[in-house]
């Protein structure tokens, strides 16, 4: 066997954790039979990570686990984890889960002299591993043990000894440790210096009055992994979910199939409708007709037998249904037929990461062919800029993968002209951008629509006037002899001037 082949065979083996998204960012899981330090401030979900490491092992791989608790007592842990639907009692009965309770006891008033070791703890852990044939061990949390024993040197040595013993038993271990700052030393008491193989940092950052959870793999000795912070969320029924932005590769197939927007003239302007798997951004000031466009788009889908999903963050169900019936659309009937699903939520009801998880779940359950989000700008309220961008990337790439046509609306802050922050974040991610704008001409407010971009298709370049009546949107003629609509300063041009401009650019030039 040559050296290089040997090296390949010695390649670090991984243990797939089963934590949603984590195996992706760690490029295959945690190094097998090694110890990994999970460091984080108070409330950064360390204990959840540790528990879930065992839970997923049992649920997905039938691997038993040992939970060594140095902090909370097992009853509290069981109670807390029940909220995720994890029935630890049941696993204990089946011999899949075992606690080694080294938590602080109320009557624990030991006099600590010197010259001792953690031989008993180690013996108990080894005993538990042997009894259950455990493949996974977690120790939660190291920092408390430093508070209970005054001899730091001894504690350090003993933790190191336990970690090495676990290694030689072939179990993969996760140890949690507390840190004081989100960006500072890795953990208190210099824990990382003796549990050095692998370090993962969990953060719970306060940014602009909002909490944002991230996970960062600082190092996996001898193994590659994704770098940087990844957002994660703690969902009620799945526990910790890492949102792997990088999973989202530009690999989507692209479809030539066109679907109707529900407004026939708009289809014509788009060169025959939207693409089946495209994401369309609809931008406009308040009252320009965004919700109407969404309603028509969704209704057309549902009425032609495609399941359609509407996620509304600005209006209540009743409002939406009343509006729709005003345009002759019976949402209630469509919902009864199972072709439509309308979900109304306040953006504030959960964090943006959780919104993303919920949306994905709804999409998975309902399997829609088209969906609309009205509006994504409302969601901006509950997130930081970075979090919002990640959300948009996450949701748009997800629906493209599923070959769902998505219509997102964005509200511009100014009445005329203008772009919104939303647009700057997502314009490059969307396939098409449609602008709805107010146009003030001779003291009258009129509405204009234009298609700013449409990937992979010819489209109308005119700014067309449109009106809203009981049948919905009616698209009329282009604004002629007016310039400056997009900048918010429309100017009426003299006929002579517009004729001169027409002569400057021949039709053929811009008809590609």
């Amino acid at each position: 066997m040559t050296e290089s082949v040997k090296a390949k065979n010695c390649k670090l083996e991984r243990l797939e954790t089963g934590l949603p998204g984590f195996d992706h960012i760690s490029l295959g899981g945690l190094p097998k039979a090694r110890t990994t330090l999970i460091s984080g401030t108070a409330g950064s979900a360390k204990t959840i990570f540790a528990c879930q490491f065992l839970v997923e092992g049992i649920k997905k791989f039938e691997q038993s686990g040992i939970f060594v608790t140095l902090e909370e007592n097992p009853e509290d842990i069981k109670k807390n984890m029940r909220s995720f639907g994890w029935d630890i009692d049941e696993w204990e009965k089946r011999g899949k889960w075992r606690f080694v309770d080294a938590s602080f006891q109320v009557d624990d008033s030991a006099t600590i002299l010197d010259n001792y070791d953690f031989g008993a703890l180690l013996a108990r852990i080894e005993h538990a591993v042997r009894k259950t044939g455990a493949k996974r061990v977690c120790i939660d949390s190291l920092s408390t043990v430093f508070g209970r024993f005054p001899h730091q040197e001894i504690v350090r040595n003993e933790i190191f000894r336990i970690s090495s013993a676990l290694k030689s038993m072939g179990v993969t271990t996760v140890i949690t440790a507390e840190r004081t700052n989100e960006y500072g030393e890795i953990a208190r008491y210099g824990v990382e210096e003796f549990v050095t193989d692998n370090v993962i940092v969990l953060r719970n950052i306060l940014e602009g009055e909002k909490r944002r959870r991230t996970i960062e793999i600082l190092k996996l000795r001898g193994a590659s992994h994704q770098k940087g912070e990844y957002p994660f969320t703690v969902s009620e029924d799945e526990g910790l979910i890492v949102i792997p932005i990088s999973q989202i590769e530009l690999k989507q197939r692209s479809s030539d199939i066109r679907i109707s927007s529900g407004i026939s003239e708009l289809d014509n302007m788009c060169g025959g409708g939207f693409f089946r798997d495209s994401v369309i951004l609809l931008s406009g000031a308040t009252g320009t007709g965004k919700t109407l466009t969404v309603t028509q788009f969704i209704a057309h889908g549902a009425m032609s037998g495609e399941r359609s999903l509407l996620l509304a963050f600005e209006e209540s169900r009743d409002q939406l249904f009343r509006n729709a019936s005003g345009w002759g659309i019976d949402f209630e009937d469509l919902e009864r037929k199972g072709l439509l699903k309308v979900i109304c939520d306040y953006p504030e009801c959960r964090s943006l990461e959780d919104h993303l998880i919920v949306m994905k779940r709804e999409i998975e359950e309902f399997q829609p062919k088209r969906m609309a989000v009205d509006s994504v700008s409302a969601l901006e309220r509950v997130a930081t800029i970075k979090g919002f961008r990640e959300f948009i990337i996450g949701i748009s790439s997800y629906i493209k993968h599923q070959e769902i046509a998505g219509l997102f609306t964005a509200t511009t802050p100014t009445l005329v002209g203008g772009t919104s922050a939303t647009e700057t974040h997502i314009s490059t991610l969307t396939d098409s951008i449609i602008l709805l704008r107010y146009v003030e001409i001779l003291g009258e407010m009129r509405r204009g629509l234009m298609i700013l971009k449409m990937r992979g298709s010819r489209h109308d370049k005119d700014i067309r006037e449109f009106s809203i009546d009981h049948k919905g949107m009616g698209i009329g003629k282009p604004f002629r002899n007016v310039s400056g609509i997009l900048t918010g300063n429309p100017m009426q041009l003299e006929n002579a001037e517009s004729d001169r401009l027409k002569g400057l650019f021949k039709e053929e030039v811009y008809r590609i």
Partner: protein
Amino acid sequence: MNKVILKLYVTGKTPKSESAITNLRYLCEKQLDGEYEIRIIDVLERPQLAENEKIIATPTLIRELPPPIRKIIGDLTDIEKVLLGLDLQRPIFGTIEEENKHD
């Protein structure tokens, strides 16, 4: 005087364990007039007992009787502190070191 029951948890036959056992025997002989019982538990042989008692460190000495339960962690070299910890303090005739010198 009530009977004293002492349990000593040790890990294997290490010098630390041996020293704890020797120190404990010496101390009991000197201080407790024969009204005591010592149980020595090796956690490597009886890990379940350590589990039940939630022992972390070794050597750990537990005074089970008379109540309340008292715990001392360490190899018991410092006899005064051990007696203080066990709440069994009596007039002290000499420390182990001094006694050893006479041997």
